[in-house]
């Protein structure tokens, strides 16, 4: 390869690309998953410093339906900063972990993630591929309850399933519940459980071109799982500063103070440094894994084989089947009794017929005898 002389301008290609990308904007889908009351909505609003999601209203909480399901809620927003647009989608999972029986409550979430990959795959196979609606989840934040002990069995089940499908980042919610020593112990235990249970969490390449970035990356990785405090209110600290934080009667817990929580590090990861890595790893690694798994068993164009493992549906199916067999049995009984009736009827008629026959025979015999009686007289 020959070195080009004074330069023909190939080095300008990244700038051209930058312009194209800047014009196109980006598309980012973030999922927040966890029990209710862990500060997910507040965190989202804190992260993007705008009210993306309205806080819960309590007026209609008594109108809960009997169906104890986990819903998928999609909130869309468009953010703009310095003329760069980001189409943000936030996926919430209300109802997860809130019921007495949470078995299989992760199914709707897992199905949703798979469905996005599926829909993208199908769109790629269409003749017209320009307008692709891409809602593949780029990152899933799993909110862990700050118990101070360890991960719950429900957490482990869900995280196992999420980790293989999406970039999973575990987060310790409401970190202002724990003192620094307790928090440290809790994080260590969570990491131990994650390692022992083979849960795949999001990792990114630490090595980078410059020292500063490498160091920053390492400190971010070391803080996993991130402890967060969320707040959209401005409060005044004891030394007069006005910050985003939570005001207690014994002090102010600040959101952006690195001694209080890891919010800054998480924001760095999600937005400032690794958003692109999240997007590209979803598109390349996770989507490819899904595609690979699907293509091994299906041909192009075939619809996905849906395994309905929803237990409620199974119960309904069973109930319907029972009803059906019951009705069939009733009908069969009816037919049988009807049949018997008909047979009885037929026998009766036969008997009558026979009776008539014998009567007629008797009369014929009489007639004959009378005829016989008459004819010899005639002779």
């Amino acid at each position, binding site marked *: 390869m020959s070195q080009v002389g004074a330069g023909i301008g190939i080095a300008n290609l990244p700038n051209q690309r930058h312009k194209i990308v800047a014009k196109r904007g980006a598309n980012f889908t973030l999922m927040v998953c966890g029990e209710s*009351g862990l500060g997910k909505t507040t965190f989202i609003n804190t992260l993007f410093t705008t009210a993306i999601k309205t806080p819960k209203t309590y007026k209609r909480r008594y109108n809960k339906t009997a169906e104890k399901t986990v819903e998928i809620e999609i909130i869309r927003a468009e953010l703009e900063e310095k003329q760069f647009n980001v189409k943000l989608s936030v996926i919430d999972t209300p109802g997860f972990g809130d019921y007495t029986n949470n078995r299989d409550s992760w199914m709707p979430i897992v199905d949703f993630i798979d469905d996005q990959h599926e829909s993208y795959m199908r769109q790629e196979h269409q003749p017209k591929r320009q307008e692709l609606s891409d809602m593949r989840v780029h990152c899933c934040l799993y909110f862990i309850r700050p118990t101070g002990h360890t991960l719950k069995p429900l957490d482990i089940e869900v995280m196992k399933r999420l980790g293989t499908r999406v970039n999973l980042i575990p987060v310790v919610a409401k970190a202002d519940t724990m003192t620094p020593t307790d928090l440290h112990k809790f994080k260590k235990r969570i990491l131990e459980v994650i390692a022992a249970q083979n849960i795949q969490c999001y990792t990114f390449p630490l090595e980078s071109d410059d020292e500063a970035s490498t160091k920053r990356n390492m400190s971010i990785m070391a803080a996993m799982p991130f402890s967060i405090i969320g707040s959209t209110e401005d409060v005044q600290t004891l030394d007069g500063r006005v910050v985003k934080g939570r005001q207690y009667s014994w002090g102010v817990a600040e959101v952006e103070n690195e001694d209080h929580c890891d919010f800054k590090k998480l924001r760095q990861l999600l937005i400032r440094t690794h958003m692109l890595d999240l997007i590209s790893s979803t598109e390349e690694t996770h989507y490819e894994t899904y595609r690979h798994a699907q293509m091994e068993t299906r041909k192009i164009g075939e619809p996905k084989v849906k395994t309905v493992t929803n237990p409620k549906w199974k119960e309904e199916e069973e109930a319907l089947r029972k009803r059906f067999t019951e009705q069939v049995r009733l009908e069969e009984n009816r037919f049988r009794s009807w049949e018997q009736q008909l047979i009885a009827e037929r026998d009766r008629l036969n008997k009558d017929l026979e009776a008539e026959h014998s009567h007629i025979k008797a009369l014929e015999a009489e007639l004959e005898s009378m005829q016989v009686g008459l004819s010899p007289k005639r002779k």
Partner: protein
Amino acid sequence: MAHRVGRRKNVKKGFQFTLMAVGASGLGRTTFINTLCDADVVPKRECDEPEMAHIEEGIKIKPYSVEDGVKISLTVVDTPGFGDMIDNEYCFQEILGYLERQYDDILSEESRIKRNPRFRDNRVHALLYFIAPTGHSLREIDIELMKRLSPRINVIPVIGKSDTLTPSELADFKKRIMQDIEHYNIPIYNFPYDPEEDDEETVYENSELRSLLPFALIGCEEEIVVNGRKVRARQYPWGIVEVDNSQHCDFAKLRFALLSSHLQDLKEITHDYLYENYRTEKLSRSAENLAEGDSSQEDHHMRMREEQTRKEEDKLREIELKVQRELKEKQQELVAKQQQLRDIDANLVTVQ
């Protein structure tokens, strides 16, 4: 007046009280018990191997006895494992079964022909239910549990780890919880008083405690030095939360109500109202089933069998005593005969 006299009597005679703490793990239940008793009553939870973290352990019911110098016999029942499984339907029945078993013991003891004077009353007088400090409202498991257990025990809802909530959040949360409790008709112990009968002080005291429901609790076993004093407090980078400070949490008020002012009331309600209800229900059920010969018959049989075994034991003991007596008599006879023989020998010697 009578109320205050009763209280003085308590402190002098010493008292026996059983308290149960129920709530999901991580809500500060164990720490609260230790803080309440000011001692290491319940051992800290040992986190199992990380490899075993996905195994669901069921609920366990563990009573701990606290003997204090102040003539108090306090038993605290802890319920680790509540609400930790993926499917928690089974937890309610376990706790309810435990409470009813204590009632059954009392019931059978009452109807015994020969009662045991040293029988220990293990009925639980109050249940503290720990609500998670979500800041929203009651969850399904909270409502289910309180509804199912309130017919058998005094339920007092409390908020665990309440230092998660700012003062305004805490006030809103408490209000919403009480609204939920009213909406779902959950009969909790709400410091009952009669505005006409009771004196002003009692009315004031009870209505104040009622307004604090559900109690916001913080638990802490370590002591740190604050302003030169040693206090039980939690130290955060942004401040220090004191357990005994009424501005920070309701721990002090709850402890006073539970162990001093309302202890007798809780015990009375348990005995006069809850236990009587259970007794009526159970006996009327067994009266119905007597015609059909049901499991209550078996209870009856078992009781009779117990009586029989005890009678047989008594008989055996009598026989043992008789045998020993006979043995002693025979020994004495033997000794007397030996003595006679010796006399005869002596006579023989002298004659010879």
